[in-house]
């Protein structure tokens, strides 16, 4: 489906009246196809009894049709243009989440939370590092008290060497 628009981007793009819905619908069809493929090895209906694959396949087909409907309406009806995606925000927030999950086990909450806080703060150019460092330390201290002590959740606070 992406072949058509890469071959003739200009003529296609001018004919798509609602690009947001058109590409959004195509993406849903893609997700549905993926789900149908993922559920293809599951047992289907036997006699009157549904197998584990029956309902996922029904939902997959339904989603595919709905996605097609959204895409067609995007093709025919005037609608919203594509919105711009920014990169900085998603990049640093995701990086902060990844760094948290990578460091929480080996280094404990204090190191992990502080590091991830600073990475997340880099997501906007507005960040004033002096105040961010202060708030980061305060937040880490607060969380170190709240989660393991006040709420009694089993979280390691420090790296193994210091335990």
């Amino acid at each position: 489906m992406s072949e058509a628009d890469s071959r003739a981007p200009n003529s296609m793009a001018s004919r798509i009246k609602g690009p947001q819905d058109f590409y959004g619908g195509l993406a849903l069809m893609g997700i549905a196809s993926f789900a149908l493929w993922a559920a293809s090895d599951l047992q289907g209906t036997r006699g009157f009894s549904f197998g584990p694959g029956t309902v996922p396949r029904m939902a997959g087909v339904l989603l595919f049709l709905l996605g097609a409907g959204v895409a067609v309406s995007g093709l025919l009806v005037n609608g919203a243009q594509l919105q711009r995606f920014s990169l900085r925000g998603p990049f640093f927030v995701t990086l902060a989440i990844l760094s948290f999950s990578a460091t929480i086990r080996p280094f404990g909450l204090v190191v992990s939370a502080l590091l991830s806080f600073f990475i997340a703060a880099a997501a906007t150019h507005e960040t004033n590092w002096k105040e961010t460092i202060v708030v980061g330390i305060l937040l880490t201290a607060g969380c170190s008290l709240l989660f393991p002590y006040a709420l009694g959740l089993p979280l390691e606070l420090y790296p193994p060497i210091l335990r």
Partner: protein
Amino acid sequence: MMMADVFSNLALGFGVAFTPVNLLLCLIGALVGTLVGILPGLGTIATVAMLLPITFGLDPVGALIMLAGIYYGAQYGGSTTSILVNIPGEATSVVTTLDGFQMAKKGRAGPALAIAAISSFFAGCVATVLIALLGAPLTRLALAFGAPEYFSLMVLGLIFAVVLAKGSVLKAIAMIVLGLLMSMVGADIETGASRMAFDIPELADGLGFATVAMGVFGFAEIIRNLDPDAQMDRNLVQQKISGLMPTRTDLKESTPAILRGTALGSLLGILPGGGAVIASFAAYTFEKKVSKHPSRFGTGVIEGVAAPESANNAAAQTSFIPLLTLGIPPNAVMALMVGAMTIHGIVPGPQVMQKQPELVWGMIASMWLGNLMLLVINLPLVGIWVRLLRVPYRLLFPSIVIFCAIGIYSINNAPTDVILAGLFGLFGYWLIKYDFEPAPLLLGMVLGPLMEENLRRALLLARGDWTVFLTRPISAGLIAIAAGLLALALLPALRKKREEVFVE
């Protein structure tokens, strides 16, 4: 006889709610809710998801009391910023800005805040009584339901959610179906076969509900708020608040508006797919329509504050009715409450009302107490709340990211859950950019297992005959209503009306 039942049930509930621990949890929930309501860019759904792990250590009643407090507390908080600084902290108080801020501009912020609080409290009281009254009969009805009726009821609920949601009907249905698909990842309930899990051990138990909610609502919202074009206007006008007390004319003018708002809100809250947002819009529009001077709306009339504020609070509370009696969450926040109950090993539905009455009635009683607390504490604290608005987003958002990450991690002590939530955050950001509503997705995900189970059971008992949904009278009625609603929503005339309501 029935009245006696209601009283004994409420007495039981107040007994539970009046323990010191539960009173404290109720207060914490209400305060956190107010805080969330005030801070724009931090929604109710994200907060409830964020605080789910915190409630693990509590007993089930306490956990639900606190989470419920967050939900209705946010309705109070949202109105405060709407009135004082023209920034709705919550989607539910968007319409309150129209007349509330105009009143504040005229130096009447005090009466506006007071009327908002009073109307919320009144609506909260009525809704509490309503839950108590309707709880038992609806539970009895629910117990008579078989698998086909349950399935049809859920279809109706989802259709309601679609019809009342803003934006494209087709896209909303697609989101529900995507949610259903996502709910099917993991072990099959009947055969135990692994479905769409790709032998990844973390997916074997299915996608965690809290993980998805936190990603799609928490992380995605943050990423969205960081977009250059989403920078919120934070140049606030500091208003001097003088004279909290409304005048006698204020009270006289707002009383009928409060009554109508409460009635409309209660009704829309019970309907699946309803909830506080649509209730506040509907109440404002309705009030404008019945008013003798509709042209004055938008210039600072007190009815324009009283009606939506009573409606959103009434709806926030009556939306617990379908959850508690039928086990069906009517909106995304209630879906998270299901998540909270499941974590504590409670399967929501009519059985809960019968087997654990102290849980249900304790929560209902706590709602009334929470509303009272909000009325008493909120007005004096207005100054502090407004000062909180000055916390810059550049410090707020990394804190939320870390708090969410720790929260998700602590559910299963699994770092992969955090990564999954991050991925769903990116997916949620994509959804926002393509104008897909994430709330129906969450609803579909929660209802998925219930729907599949009832569909399979119904068809097995009917020997594969799909007409079973149309030959059983209750089920047929529900399906007919659903089909009618869907047809109405797709009709162009009504579509225009819907848009009007949301444009206002």
